[in-house]
């Protein structure tokens, strides 16, 4: 996968993840063009399209569009289900996820994505395992001022 974009019906970008090196300018141009192209499509149209030399796979969930750009040999249907699994993960984590959750907790949306996809490839497809990783992190977060002894048990490096 080359990149993933989440954007609203109004064309506002909510999440952008780039797996290939592109300049900031190129990224902006790609997002702008692609968002326009997809918003112009009618609801019943197919979820795939050829765009430049990439295959675009997209799906709309409520007010949000999820859009992935994959390479020629990549499988469109399984990419569609990558999107769905990501939506499931967000949904499970936030509990009936809505666009606002992603706006206000954008950093979480990125963390969850990193657990699920890395370098544009599926890292862990089990919903349980991804959520376990995120919850562990949250657990660490809640103890953000842990006692010293707890730290040494986990053999963390000394604070610098």
């Amino acid at each position, binding site marked *: 996968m080359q990149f993933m974009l989440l954007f609203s019906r109004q064309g506002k*970008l909510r999440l952008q993840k780039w797996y290939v090196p592109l300049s900031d300018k190129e990224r902006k141009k790609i997002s702008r063009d692609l968002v326009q192209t997809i918003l112009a499509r009618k609801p019943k149209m*197919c979820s795939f399209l050829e765009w430049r030399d990439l295959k675009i796979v997209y799906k709309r969930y409520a007010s949000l569009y999820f859009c992935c750009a994959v390479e020629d040999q990549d499988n469109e*249907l399984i990419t569609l289900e990558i999107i769905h699994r990501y939506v499931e993960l967000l949904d499970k984590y*936030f509990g009936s996820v809505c666009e606002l959750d992603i706006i206000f907790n954008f950093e979480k949306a990125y*963390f969850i994505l990193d657990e699920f996809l890395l370098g544009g490839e599926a*890292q*862990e*497809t*089990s919903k349980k395992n991804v959520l376990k990783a995120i919850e562990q992190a949250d657990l660490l977060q809640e103890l953000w001022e842990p006692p010293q002894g707890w730290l040494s048990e986990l053999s963390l490096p000394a604070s610098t």
Partner: protein
Amino acid sequence: MPAVSKGDGMRGLAVFISDIRNCKSKEAEIKRINKELANIRSKFKGDKALDGYSKKKYVCKLLFIFLLGHDIDFGHMEAVNLLSSNKYTEKQIGYLFISVLVNSNSELIRLINNAIKNDLSSRNPTFMCLALHCIANVGSREMAEAFAGEIPRILVAGDTMDSVKQSAALCLLRLYKASPDLVLMGEWTSRVVHLLNDQHMGVVTAAISLITCLSSKNPDEFKTCVSLAVSRLSRIVSSASTDLQDYTYYFVPAPWLSCKLLRLLQCYPPPEDGAVKGRLVECLETILNKAQEPPKSKKVQHSNAKNAILFEAISLIIHYDSEPNLLVRACNQLGQFLQHRETNLRYLALESMCTLASSEFSHEAVKTHIETVINALKTERDVSVRQRAADLLYAMCDRSNAKQIVAEMLSYLETADYSIREEMVLKVAILAEKYAVDYSWYVDTILNLIRIAGDYVSEEVWYRVIQIVINRDDVQGYAAKTVFEALQAPACHENMVKVGGYILGEFGNLIAGDPRSSPLVQFNLLHSKFHLCSVPTRALLLSAYIKFINLFPETKATIQEVLRSDSQIRNSDVELQQRAVEYLKLSSIASTDVLATVLEEMPPFPERESSILAKLKKKKGPGAVTVELEDGKERGELNGGGDRGGDAAIAASNASTPSPSADLLGLRSTAPVSGTTPSAGSLLVDVFSEAGPSATSAGVNDDGFLSSAPPTVASEDPAPPLPESDELLNKFVCKNNGVLFENQLLQIGIKSEYRQNLGRMYLFYGNKTSVQFVSFNTTVSCPGELQSQLNVQTKTVEPLVEGGAQVQQVINIECLTDFIDAPLLNIKFRYGGALQNISLKLPVTINKFFQPTEMAAADFFQRWKQLSQPQQEAQKIFKASHGMDTEVLKAKLLGLGTALLENVDPNPENYVCAGVIQTKAQQVGCLLRLEPNAQAQMYRLTLRSSKDTVSQRVCDLLAEQF
């Protein structure tokens, strides 16, 4: 505020986001952001040290602002500080910021890499994963340099946690993609392959992406993965939907892993081991069988996951292209999808069937769906699906259904979306030509194409129809009649006028017997379009008019009247004005015979690859090429000697035919063919040479009808070339400088240099005597065919060469197309009253226009195989006439102009070379192999190139060198 805020919500961040959302205008948003930026900046700069929480909050705000699309130029250092925090949440935000806002500041990179290094060696899996995610997200070369050695160790170490392995595998993949040279294969390689056996499905899922990428680049090193992949796949395919627990997705066991396994297998040919292959075929059959089973769930996720595997399995079946039974089953399955209610499936089925159409086993099966596909082209509501249908029709087209498919595509064109018209036009043009059994159908099709979608008909397309009509006399009358009728339409496309002008100018006489299309009617019809056309078309029409004067003397007065009108002869466009003036003059002073010669019918165009195909390939990208290459192969046979050529060929042919009609197409032929007078249509200059100043090129261009032109200098004919001139020529095949000729009076030295299809040669004429040469004159000429192949320009030298002096002459050479003969150099002078007349061959040989091409062994052999038609190869076996010293041989081969390729031929005694001959019309790739046999003192030399004449010529030239 959102309903959920897990962990420690950063209240300040939430407030800021709310503020931004409440902004009523873009200006208000910018104002709020600037206020926040100022606030953050002051906090970062303030005297009071910030605590970790505040730092995290501000860095997160900056990140938010950046993601909104605003520039951020500070905060990197604070983010880097967060990396070394021992609080997970601060570290995490620091890494996120770094991943999104990559900075190329080297000091920062050093600090970041340091922090990553600490986390990687922390043995805390959570921290290690964070660090690996960061490397994978950034993927820069600096990171590859720092960590490409360490990550493989983490990946294969026995005590690494599963989650860390997963991250390490994909992290390494990202680095390998970005900087393959920095990721060195090694002892870890074989252990990575065995991750396919790992108990943890997540580890296998992550590792297989890495293995697939590595395998596609180094198939041999990783080939043990095939049997492992097959057994893993087999276990998944045969498992019950509950066996894999959380890796089962909507009742489909491990769909992602299955797809990736099938994808990995596509890096390899079918397994050679019978047992492995049997097991794999079983898997593929099971997958196909499952497609027929009733769905276990009505959810679209279930069918998508199941069909994702099915499509990947079909891709593998197509990749193997060796199991007719599976191919036909795949085709039938896709046939069912063609009428599925899910648009996505219809789209994918059309796409996948396109590749099936090119397999000999399934081509016929694909064809049975033609009606469905045509229907899709007409009724699908989504243009991307219609596009797929058009692609499939193109792919399934063969002689049996060409007329139907071309007709359907033409009728679709009338309403087709603008976005796909140009491509459709190219496809129709290609199919019409490729499957033309009778050429009247071809002509009809192309003219229809111009009528329906004239704006999208590129030059290549209309050039082509003209080439074919010129080369096939059985269709010329029909073409003239049809184009005449098409021009009757009150509004016709300019491309139609171009084709009409050209064809009537050449073949209007074939329909002139019918009073309805008498010469004058034809002329008036063409001329009625004149004023609506652009300059290039008008120029073409003017050329058609002069051709009319030759074809139909009765139109002469009318046409001269037109040419003489102010709107022509005083046209503000210089090209039009010049044509009008020259054509008018030509028609009034040239005799009928001269006119007939000058304006004779165009000769057939030389064989060339279709430029339409080239254009389609360019448009479509590599995906379409496989089908296209086959087209290329077949085309040669189908149209026999017919001619194909793009404008380049036309331009070249212009040069060969001394006829102003040469201008008809090649509006670019304004470049002079030879001689030094830069003028449109050099021939016209020649014809009028008595009127204008004498052209220095007069002696160069010995066109038959030029005899009326007075010779400029010596009246003696040039002497025939010296008997030894071939031998002298051979001396220069592998070198560019040296003495070409020497006798008691004269020495001729040469220095030359070549770049692409251009060359410059300096000739040095040395007077060896103490007496001056008078009437010293040299000419360079291109006899026969050569004048259309080489464009040679010289300046005259001073007619006096003092005793002991040397004069220099520069010769500019342009290679238009490949050639065999050498230009002739004639030198005449008087020495003590006696005329010296010497002719030599100028050492300009086709190999001078070589560009060396470096390539790897695999490329070389692939190209070698591609050039396997008998006429593409030339071979000679000959006795060594010099020593067989390696260094001398190498120097000669390099001197030839090709690249000498090391480590290509398995036999180190042999030499292989590659190069591309650059001509104006085309590039001709050449491969060479020289096999010395020291014992027998013999060589075998083999040349392969895309052009038979080139292979032969280079072979002949080189064989004389050893």
